[in-house]
């Protein structure tokens, strides 16, 4: 059967120019240009520092299936997420069709291998719906982005120009692809119908179906024109889009698959100063951390390329929420812009100025503003990391001696005394003196125990937080645990020291504690401080198993060894809410145990805050963060206390001494004294032990 319309492979423009020339030239030019651009884009990755990301392929593939293909994190933002899922799957489906079309322009009978039979029928049926769905999704997305402009996409002036135009433009490009593909098909089918042929089936309600019905009255000549014109509009747009992707935030269309494959597999840790350099060899390194762009690892740069500017990280970032000078999204965007401008598509690489300080892209305060809470990384739908970069930038600053004055004292106290307060080592166990009915052993060569209670600095020295230590010890006594503490042999766990970029100080704290723990001969470690928990569990090596006190509580409640009495009359009128500490929740996935521990108190009323579990809102951080607060409009703790208030709670239970410090201060600042209180999980449980 003769085709009713001449295909692009056979058509002659003005009757003598064979359009097949364009069908050949466009892909050649497009692919050639794309290859050139990609080669240029890869250059900075090659020059970057190493990053070990080829291990554990099974887990990586699972991540790809879940986070990339499964779009797992997208529905966390329902509207944008669903739109993205439609476009994403539409793209996946239509990529086959688009490729087929490109070849059809050269060889008109071409059909994608495998799509000749029933599978093809099914595919063609769905791809029309896919195109239609994508079309409407990008129109909604364009309207949402261009007219409604959600706050999330707002660009503060200091961060450069806004990307709304780019976003809307790309929506229109995609819409063009969808329309031209459908129109190309619709014109042909309309001609078939006109010719009385057995017309190709078009799924009802699709764009192509709609266009076909619209075009039925047109002359064959105009249908032929539509057919050819829409084919080349599609072809041109397709290759333009391909080459446009690596120019901006839509690079993620290409890179996200790789970025998710290479994303971090472990939480709660910070990458080594240099991959391939052991702790013992650190002294030999000329320089520490990231000072100039090529000090970043290739994964960092891949992260920059991959950022889609969706703003979810910054929307969740507590520092950004309280208007500290940090917005994680711009860590990436500025990094990407730097890569583009210093590794240009044409001409030589540009000399690299330092990243931080005058002329640099990041400010000191920006980098010190991060609490390493991990909310950004939890949220990013395509596996972009921030904590490693922030810590590495800090390492660079520390190496240059560039440390805020308010942090120098605590750091030097940590070096000399093993705690940031400059308190004497011998006073580390003084909190035990006021403890009643519970003996706390101080472990040494002569005294041993099954379990070590690792107290850490704040609970050892801060008068208010010593109560948390006493509550923890009381619980351990109540469950009959054979335990002790290291006393003056314990030093700060160094979790925050590491995250403030003082790697060598962290190393010395770790070495000291590791030795002391080894010498104590304990079989297990328990701590009530999530920061210590994280360091011991994820950063120290060859440690005995580490448990958080909430796990001890839950275990002993279920075994019946720990009996809790019900709420008092006064408590019965209170509404409790649990605030997830970052280093217990997000970094270590302990969400359920603390809740179960609270719920084990008979009669207690507990509500959830809107932002809870892996969306918990950082209290402003612990450790050295207590000594450094960048400019901010509101305290994070105050924001958090308001969350609790909104949830209808009047007692905030937390499981971290730093959270407690921040919450108690925030309650005062927010003027909620008498209306809101904060208590540590251990304190709450200790007060309800039924002896």
């Amino acid at each position, binding site marked *: 059967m003769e085709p009713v319309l001449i295909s692009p492979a056979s058509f002659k423009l003005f009757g003598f120019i064979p359009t097949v020339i364009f069908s050949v030239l466009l892909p050649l030019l497009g692919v050639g240009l794309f290859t050139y651009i990609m080669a240029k884009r890869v250059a900075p990755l090659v020059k970057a520092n190493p990053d070990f990301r080829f291990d554990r392929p099974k887990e990586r593939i699972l991540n790809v299936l879940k986070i990339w293909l499964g779009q797992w994190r997208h529905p966390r933002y329902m509207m944008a997420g669903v739109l993205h899922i439609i476009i994403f799957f539409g793209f996946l489906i239509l990529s086959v069709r688009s490729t087929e079309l490109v070849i059809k322009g050269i060889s008109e009978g071409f059909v994608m291998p495998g799509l000749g039979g029933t599978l093809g029928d099914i595919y063609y049926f769905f791809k029309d719906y896919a195109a239609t769905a994508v079309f409407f999704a990008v129109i909604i997305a364009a309207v949402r982005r261009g007219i409604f402009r959600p706050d999330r996409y707002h660009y503060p002036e200091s961060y450069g120009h806004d990307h709304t135009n780019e976003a809307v433009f790309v929506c229109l490009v995609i819409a063009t692809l969808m329309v031209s593909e459908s129109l190309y098909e619709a014109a042909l089918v309309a001609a078939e119908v006109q010719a009385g042929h057995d017309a190709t089936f078009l799924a009802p309600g699709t764009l192509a179906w709609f266009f076909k019905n619209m075009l039925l009255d047109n002359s064959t000549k105009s249908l032929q024109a539509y057919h050819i014109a829409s084919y080349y509009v599609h072809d041109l747009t397709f290759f333009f889009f391909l080459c446009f992707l690596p120019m901006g935030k839509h690079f993620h269309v290409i890179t996200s698959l790789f970025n998710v494959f290479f994303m971090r597999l472990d939480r709660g840790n910070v990458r080594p100063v240099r991959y391939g350099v052991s702790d013992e060899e650190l002294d030999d390194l000329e320089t520490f951390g990231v000072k100039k762009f090529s000090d970043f690892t290739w994964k960092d740069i891949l992260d920059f390329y991959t950022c889609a500017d969706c703003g979810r990280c910054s929307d969740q970032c507590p520092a950004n929420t309280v208007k500290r000078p940090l917005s994680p999204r711009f860590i990436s965007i500025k990094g990407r812009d730097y890569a583009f401008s210093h590794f240009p598509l044409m001409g030589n690489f540009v000399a690299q100025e330092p990243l931080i300080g005058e002329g640099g892209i990041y400010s000191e305060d920006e980098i010190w503003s991060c609490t390493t809470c991990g909310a950004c990384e939890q949220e990013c739908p395509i596996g972009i990391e921030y904590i490693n970069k922030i810590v590495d930038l800090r390492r660079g600053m520390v190496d240059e001696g560039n440390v805020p004055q*308010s942090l120098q004292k605590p750091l030097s106290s940590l070096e000399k005394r093993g705690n940031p*307060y400059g308190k004497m080592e011998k006073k580390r166990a003084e909190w035990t003196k006021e403890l009643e009915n519970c003996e706390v052993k101080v472990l040494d060569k002569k005294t041993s125990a099954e379990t070590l209670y690792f107290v850490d600095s704040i609970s050892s020295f*801060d*008068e*208010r937080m010593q109560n948390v230590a006493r509550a923890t010890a009381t619980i351990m006594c109540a469950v009959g645990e054979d335990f002790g503490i290291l006393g003056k042999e314990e030093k700060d766990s160094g979790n925050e020291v590491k995250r403030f970029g003082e790697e060598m100080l962290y190393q010395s704290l770790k070495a000291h504690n590791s030795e002391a723990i080894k010498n104590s001969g304990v079989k297990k470690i328990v701590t009530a401080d999530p920061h210590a928990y994280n360091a011991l569990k994820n950063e120290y090596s060859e440690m005995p198993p580490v448990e958080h006190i909430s796990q001890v509580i839950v275990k002993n409640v279920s075994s019946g060894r720990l009996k809790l009495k019900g709420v008092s009359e006064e408590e019965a009128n209170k509404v409790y809410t649990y605030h997830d500490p970052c280093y217990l929740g997000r970094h270590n996935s302990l969400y359920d145990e603390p809740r179960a521990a609270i719920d084990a108190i008979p009669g207690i009323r507990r509500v959830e805050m809107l932002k809870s579990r892996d969306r918990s809102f950082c209290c402003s951080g612990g450790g050295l963060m*207590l*000594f*450094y*607060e960048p400019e901010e409009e*509101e*305290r994070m703790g105050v924001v958090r206390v308001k969350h609790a208030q909104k949830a209808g709670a009047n007692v905030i239970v937390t499981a971290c001494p730093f959270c407690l*410090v921040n919450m108690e*201060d925030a309650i*005062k*600042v927010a*003027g909620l004294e008498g209306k809101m209180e904060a208590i540590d999980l251990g304190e709450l449980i200790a007060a309800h032990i039924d002896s």
Partner: protein
Amino acid sequence: MADVFAYIKHADGVADDSALELIVAAKKIAPDASVTAVVTGSGADLDKVCSEMATVYNAVWKIDNAALAYPNAEVVRKALVAILPADSIVLLPHDTFGMDLGPGLSIKMDSTFVADIVGVDGVDGTTLKVVRQEFSGAVSTHVTCDISAGAVLNMRPGVFQPDDTKFGGDVVDKSGDAGDLSAKRTFIEVVEAEAGDVDITKSEVLVSVGRGIEDEDNIEMVFDLAKAMGADVSCSRPIVDAKWLEKSRQVGTSGQTVKPKVYMAMGISGSFQHMGGIKGNPFIVAVNKNAKAPIFQVADVGIEADILEFIPELTEAIENL
């Protein structure tokens, strides 16, 4: 006992508070000695101060020279070395001027120097025993010094309270003996601190305000109290958060570290971060309506009261002194 001299600081024709303190200190060191005030400067202002000092000290030595119009310690030192007899005991206030002058003067006089004296035990033969403080006031020490060849003694301002001691004597013009007053350091100007740009880290007395002040409009009363006391105003974090005072006034681990002698914590609960910014073991007065406020643990004197009522009354009482 050798001759005793006290250097009189003055500005705009008015003697510094230390002028009356040094005579008290001098009499503690040498009860029977004749104490001579040394006043340097130029013009009418100098004469005014000299005649004022003549009613108090046993004698006044005046050096009138244009080079001394501003008390440049390097120039003053030259003048003093020229006119003072060997083995003199010279008293200076231990302030920014006395610190500038004292140590070098002692070398040029070939005598003994003791800084920042807060108490005088007495003289035994040629040995003077005094009290000093070390480690930012954490401990006190008794110090002996050999004054046989004279001494330059810097006395801490505000410690030796002026009494009614009035001896009276003549003004002797020593201007002719001052000799060559050229120096390798020349005074240019005094740059006044910008208003509202108080450096609380250097303040000796701080009235520090916390959340107990409740409203921005009430901040005014804190400044009134500080003015009456001659103190500076500092605050705790919430006040800065509320933007009622500038960040430079915030005491605490995330603000300034202050080392005052007296710290008035008004409506401050005394959080861990706040107390971390207070060093040097000051005398802490805490006023708080919450009897359980932790500030009372660390304060020397506590008053359970609402600062909104207490501050105006205290201000009035001090103004009426």
